[in-house]
């Protein structure tokens, strides 16, 4: 029994080594999308697992996934590639990030062999009940802090940047549209004549 769990855990650790963790995925990304996206690269994807986030607040819509490859080298290659170049899946310009996976990211991990589970109760009359209660409160506080950070800072910043970029993109587009229309409608030519500017310089656009 012992060796079996050890083997299982060893196999699990090996799996972790060749898994890549992706974040900043759009909520519309599905398994097929990921498969096709990663077909461009050398590695062969063996398994895709989306990390479910039902306890996460619904306003944070990013998805996260674990991609399992055939071997560790392939996983490493993908991670390096995605850190060198911004990779867009199903939309732009928010790039997807890849990290090596960690055992705690898997919700179906086997238990490590040779561990004992110990637990004990503490009642209010126990002397360190207060400390324990303190720790509980601390834990609650921390979890609340985490969700606050997520909502306030993280989401806010993301939306800010997104809006900013949308505006920039819009202005770029309008600028180009204007140039385009000026050239095509001939008003550019008229203006060129007026100002005595040689149009052939700009007609390459």
């Amino acid at each position, binding site marked *: 029994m012992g060796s079996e769990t050890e083997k299982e855990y060893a196999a699990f650790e090996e799996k972790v080594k060749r898994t890549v963790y992706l974040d900043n995925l759009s909520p519309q990304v599905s398994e097929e999308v990921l498969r096709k996206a990663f077909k461009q690269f050398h590695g062969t994807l063996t398994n895709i697992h989306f990390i479910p986030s039902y306890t*996460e607040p619904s306003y944070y819509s990013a998805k996260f996934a674990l991609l399992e490859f055939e071997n560790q080298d392939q996983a490493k290659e993908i991670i390096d590639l995605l850190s060198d170049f911004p990779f867009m899946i199903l939309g732009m310009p928010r790039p997807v990030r890849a990290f090596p996976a960690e055992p705690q990211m898997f919700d*179906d991990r086997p238990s490590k062999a040779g561990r004992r589970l110990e637990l004990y109760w503490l009642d209010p009359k126990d002397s360190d009940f207060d400390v*324990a209660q303190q720790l509980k409160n601390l834990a609650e506080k921390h979890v609340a802090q985490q969700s606050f*950070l997520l909502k306030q800072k993280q989401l806010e910043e993301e939306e800010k*940047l997104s809006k900013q970029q949308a505006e920039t993109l819009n202005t770029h587009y309008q600028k180009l549209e204007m140039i385009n229309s000026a050239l095509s409608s001939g008003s550019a030519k008229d203006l060129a004549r007026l100002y005595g500017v040689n149009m052939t310089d700009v007609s390459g656009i």
Partner: protein
Amino acid sequence: MEASSCCIVSYIVVCSNFISSIGILVSVFGGDQAMSQLVEENQKTFKWGIKIVTDDSEIKSYKSFTYQGVQYFLQDCVYLYREGAKDTDIGKLVKMWESKTGAKRGKVIWFFRPVDVCNFLREYEPSWNELFLASGEGRGVSNIIPLEAIVGKCNVACTAKDRRNTLLSKSDLAKANYYVSHIFDVGDLRISDKFPDIIDKIKVERLFNWSQNNPKGNLECRTGLSAGAQLKEKPTNTAEKPTKIEILHASENFENRDKPKANVECRNDPSANALLKVKEKPTYTAENHIKAEVLSIHENLEHHTLEAPPLKKRKILPVAETDPPSPSQDTRRWFFTLPWEDKVKEAHEQGTLVHLYNLDLSHTALDVQEMISKAFKVKAHAKVIPRRHSFDVYGHALVIFESKDDADLVMCLLKDRCLVVGEGRPLVACKATFNEPDMTLNFPGHLIMDSLKHKFNRKAVFASHCAQANTIEHEMAMQWRMLQNKSDLWWEALYKGQAKEFSHCQNQIMKHRTDELNTSAVEVTVAHESSDVPNRTEVERPSAPKSDEPNRTAVEVTSGPESPVERPQSASHPTLL
């Protein structure tokens, strides 16, 4: 009960001169070499179904698709709507494919309503629900349509007294929306009840009713998804093949015709349990092709026939599907327990879902379940929530109890008392919140150029790609990268701060715990020994934790074994970090 396996049979069209050994390609959705996805709203309503593999790399042919919640197969009759038309048109889908531009197209052979051909009816008096099948040469027989023009399925029954047509039962006829008994020849502009062999390159048998009385029963064939399946042709006649695949024929009438039959061989799945029957006929000397007839059987035991248009060169048309083509949900659910997500949803509604945290990071779901059964003597089903940030010290789990009372009890107990697990971690329980991920929320960072879309009136296609360095996109991506790194930093700061506070508190508990153990050890030894101070300190010293100050243990010893020892909490504060 093999309802779990979908049943698609693959078939080969092979030229007798060639040996075919092409692997089976499987792609349920329209994936081609250029990774493209449609980001239109309609993407969610249109989904391709079973793919047919052909040699044509630009066109991807299919056997079925799902649009707006309805599943359409080849040979289905559909309603099509043209803008400005007074009524819908009805056609029979004979082909469906996706072009290389991503446009979804289908070929339909039209049915004429009586009003369409009223000028040419002469003496024939049609019924109100009768249609005429288009045939002949000329315009109006068939068209290529965009599949998005389909507005619904139509049930058209063929009541022609043709030997190739199987007549339907009365109940089937009653179910039909329309019936067809005559053709309308667009060349002659006449009604006729003689159905030709070919209508617009489609064999007319395919336009008739499907055979309902197939004697062979269930067909199951699973082909391997990888390219490992080898398909070979057997040039000689073989009456029956002893492999475990069964082929059904649409109508036995075919045997009367002098047509070559197919060779089919599939790699089979051990769960397939049918017999293979291959009928072969001598090939045409002139044409040299062998056609295969294969039926796919759905769970509802419907049959479709699909025949490849005759081609001189060899063609492999294997089809394998991973998803059951029925529009119903995952049928595996019938046999296995519900998938976790649905369980969670259900539990949340019933109030049996509890969110447990402050678990040790190495705890697994089984550990949690064990813990709960040990501590509370109730059964529960738990799953650990994966941790996404590397510095987070808290382990979370979702626990589903058997009843609401259990859940409430556990939460109460955990609130009033402290259950400490692992290394000084008292568990915290709270009512779990379950949020369905909102798919419609805008994902900040994905910009869609609406104005562009309207201008070109085309669906925007985003291919997954790496941004090149000289584009605006790259610049924006870099801004996102910066934000991502910044956010990493602030999360790290938060978690590290939390970890510090946490470990400080945790050490206190641990220390107290070992102290308690020590005092109980002391109590034991005191009972057996004399109250010799040096002896007790001997006993205690080895087992005391590292950072204990010597005078503290002395204090504990001297205060006596009976009463619980007062531990000066302030003393431990500065030393343990």
